[in-house]
């Protein structure tokens, strides 16, 4: 046996094959440990995010990565003490904030308490509780999800309380984008205010009397005093050619570019996100002209019930905000994060107190977090939902390898039995079995598989993988049966079989003790050579949509690529097919090496 292994490892081909197989087996078995994400349901980044390493190429220099401002599951220490990034500010000294270590939405945590002292009488008060963070990437993220849990007294006509989550850019001069109720008024610059230098922001046209004319292009600060005042003009830029120098004037309005540099929509601006000064592939398209509000809805505020409200998520991919902004070909997350800068994330609490009272109003804030999903992720990027392709690949290895091995095993076992029986019994049995084998060999494999899986798949219901294994296995024995039969026919005439017969051994004994050991090598070789066929068959069936939709295999990954129209997402297309090919080639290489090992004739030739 050790000699056998030494010879096997002496072959470069076998070693290469074994290494590939060991790597894939390791990935398949350890999938749960290697990746924390579920291959289909965990959303890890924006949809269609290229791999992280793509950022180091010039094409991907504007891509961003995930930034999670995670205070979840709650405030376990005082965020208001010095040394933390959180800060509190109020419009009136009667509104104060403190940390309550024992009252929390999350078990065992604490929360931030905003208190209004109502003794002095009615009034409207605002307070902000916020933190600052860096957005270190030149390009915008793909998606943001902010959440907050609030506990406030029930809203009443005398005491409406509302809370608004917001994300703002700190640098002065930039317009701020709030995540507030969509019914609130449109954010417009006040007359005389600084005009934004941020190319993300477009304003309505101003006439000579500084009234807004809706639906018109950007304001150009034509008198150059940096302020929005009378005499500004509105300008629409001309279409830049690919590679043309981009104007540094942020107020010039260009038209949308997609990755390929083709014009697609009519009302967005090209943002020179990689700072190259040219309109090229990595530029991000940003806001078009503002036609309405750009806010998220959060309908549970003002509060109508007392106690902790379950935390609400503001998701830039859903809700009113998305519908409004999507018309401009943009996600709100892209509007907010235009470029590398410092940002604040916080909550603005508004309390309108209509009466004097000795009882203060307490509003508790907890479970505040902000997840910003980047436009690049991990080793192999993400799919159409934003799930991790790498996780899909290694979980897919499980199904593909399992189906391949088990089907090949079934096929080889059946082929062995049929071949032994036909070869040893001969005569009528042989004739019938071999005619049947020939007939099945002629019938085209894939159509038969398709028909059988369609018919049996319904009967197996959720256990469709099992149906695949059985069908592929039960249609994969014919070739091997012929090989075994011919071997048995030649072995049957050897002297040692005759000797066994003379010693009075029965046919069962001879078959198992004398013939079988002589074809063991053949079994190994054909097993190794049958696996690729089974893996390919499974992949083809899953690709055609006949596989198990509850688990991922490499074939189903490619099926998803096809059905979601993602053919151009190379990081999703290439890995599964390449893996199928690599594993198949590995098995073939091992099969060939085993063949040269067991077949002395071949060994001499090499």
């Amino acid at each position, binding site marked *: 046996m050790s000699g056998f292994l030494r010879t096997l490892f002496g072959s470069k081909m076998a070693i290469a094959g074994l290494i590939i197989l060991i790597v894939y087996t390791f990935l398949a078995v350890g999938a749960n440990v290697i990746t924390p994400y579920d291959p289909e349901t965990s959303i890890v980044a924006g949809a269609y995010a290229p791999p992280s390493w793509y950022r180091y190429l010039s094409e991907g220099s504007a891509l961003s990565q995930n930034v999670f401002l995670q205070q979840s599951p709650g405030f376990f220490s005082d965020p208001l003490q010095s040394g933390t990034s959180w800060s509190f500010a109020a419009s009136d000294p009667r509104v104060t904030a403190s940390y309550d270590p024992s009252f929390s939405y999350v078990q065992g945590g604490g929360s931030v308490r905003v208190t209004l002292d109502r003794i002095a009488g009615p009034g409207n008060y605002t307070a902000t509780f916020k933190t600052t963070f860096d957005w270190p990437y030149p390009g915008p993220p793909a998606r943001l999800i902010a959440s907050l849990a609030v506990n406030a007294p029930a809203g009443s006509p005398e005491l409406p309380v509302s809370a608004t989550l917001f994300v703002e850019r700190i640098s002065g001069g930039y317009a701020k984008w709030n995540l507030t109720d969509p019914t609130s008024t449109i954010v417009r610059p006040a007359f005389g205010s600084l005009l934004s230098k941020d190319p993300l922001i477009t304003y309505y046209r101003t006439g000579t009397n500084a009234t807004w004319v809706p639906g018109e292009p950007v304001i150009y600060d034509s008198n150059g005093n940096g302020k929005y005042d009378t005499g500004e003009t509105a300008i629409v830029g001309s279409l830049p050619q690919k590679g043309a120098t981009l104007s540094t004037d942020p107020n010039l309005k260009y038209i949308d570019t997609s990755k390929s540099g083709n014009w697609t929509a009519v009302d967005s601006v090209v943002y020179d996100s990689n700072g190259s000064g040219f309109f090229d592939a990595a530029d991000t398209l940003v806001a078009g002209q503002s036609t309405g509000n750009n806010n998220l809805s959060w309908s549970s505020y003002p509060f109508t019930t007392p106690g902790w409200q379950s935390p609400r998520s503001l998701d830039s991919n859903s809700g009113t905000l998305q519908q409004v902004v999507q018309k401009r070909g943009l996600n709100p997350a892209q509007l907010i994060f235009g470029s590398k800068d410092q940002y604040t994330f916080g909550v603005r609490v508004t309390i309108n107190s209509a009466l004097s009272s000795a009882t203060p109003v307490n509003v508790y804030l907890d479970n505040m977090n902000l997840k910003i999903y980047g436009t690049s992720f991990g080793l192999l990027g993400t799919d159409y939902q934003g799930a991790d392709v790498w996780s899909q690949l290694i979980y897919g290895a499980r199904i593909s390898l399992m189906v391949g091995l088990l089907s090949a095993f079934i096929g080889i076992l059946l082929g062995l039995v049929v071949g032994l029986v036909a070869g040893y019994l001969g005569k009528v049995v042989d004739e019938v079995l071999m005619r049947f084998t020939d007939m099945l060999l002629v019938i*085209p494999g894939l159509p038969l598989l398709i028909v059988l899986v*369609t018919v049996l798949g319904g009967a197996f219901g959720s256990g469709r993988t099992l149906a695949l294994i059985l069908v592929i296995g039960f249609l994969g024995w014919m070739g091997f049966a012929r090989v075994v039969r011919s071997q048995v026919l030649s072995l049957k005439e050897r002297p040692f079989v005759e000797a066994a017969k003379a010693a009075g051994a029965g046919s069962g004994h001879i078959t198992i003790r004398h013939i079988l050991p002589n074809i063991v090598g053949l079994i190994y070789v054909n097993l190794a050579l049958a696996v690729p066929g089974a893996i390919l068959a499974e992949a083809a069936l899953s690709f055609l949509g006949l596989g198990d939709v509850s688990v991922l295999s490499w074939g189903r990954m490619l099926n998803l690529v096809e059905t979601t129209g993602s053919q151009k997402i*190379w990081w999703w*297309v*290439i890995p599964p097919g390449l893996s199928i090919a690599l594993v198949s080639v590995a098995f073939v290489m091992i099969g060939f090496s085993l063949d040269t090992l067991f077949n002395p004739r071949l060994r001499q030739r090499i």
Partner: protein
Amino acid sequence: MGLRGYLVKRSINTVILILFVITLNFVIFELLPGTQGSVAGLAENPKIPPERKQQFIDSELTRYGLLCGYDSNHNPIPCSVWERFGKYFWAMVTFNFGNSFQTGDPITQDMIQSGRLANTLLLIGVSSVIALALGIFLGVISAKKRGSFIDSTMVTTSLVTFSLPTFWMAMVLVLVFVFWLNPTWPASGVTPANWIDPKLAPTSIWQVIPVRLQYLFLPALTLTLFQYGGHLLLTRATMLEALSEDYITTARAKGLPERTVLYKHALKNASLPIVTSAALNFGFILSGAIITETVFAWDGLGYWLYNAINWKDIPVMQAMFFIIALCVIVANFGADVLYGLLDPRIKYE
């Protein structure tokens, strides 16, 4: 046994095989659950008055060949398996495949008049011819330069294209040719979608041909890559065998140019297994065509079968399986006959 006996035996085998396929096709679809109740479901249509419900069910069951008359108490008699098999068998033999669930049209009409059969034949024909020519040409070069770098490169490349999943190869070709090189290149379909309107379709053949070739290019390339590796390896093997024969040494000794030796002497003798294997591989090519047509939405038999899977269009699946199997069986028979006719040395068992 002479040639005639050989042909007779092959013919008998072919007929038995066709009967086997017809039976298998019946047995497989007999296993399909869920026919019970679907007609009763149809009868729930509110437009059918309650008193006519039973009559409707019975007429539908009769139409589907599930009901064979009534007994003396006017109870319906379900058809026995044998009666159904008899009807089915006759229908298959006369190419009467029933109507498609998707369109309600006869299947033969959906297959032939719609141009699907022609599309598949075009795709398979073009790619097979190119693959055969390419495979033989490269195989000869490979055999001539045996052991060289060119030889090992060609053998490795053909092994790789041979073992790659076809649909993935197609997807990578789309990625490279359409998304990376030329975004205006058509990635799916047989003709531009707006040609369905006769006013928009060009009438001049010189306008039609370039566009059709453009659409044909990627699917045909996929199928060519899928096939040529097999031809190359087989040509190389048979050529190597032929080149070691004595008559090649003789030809070389005579001072014949190497070209003549290779193509006139060696290839001519080596070509027989190549030609017959091309015919024998017809089933393999059809499997590749099903997958390729699916990726490129090439409206041929394979794409039709794929759509039938999604629609649970059982009559189409049944007919397609029978037709594909029939084609393969006939191709096999053709290969056998060809072999018998072309090679006088063949020993008939």
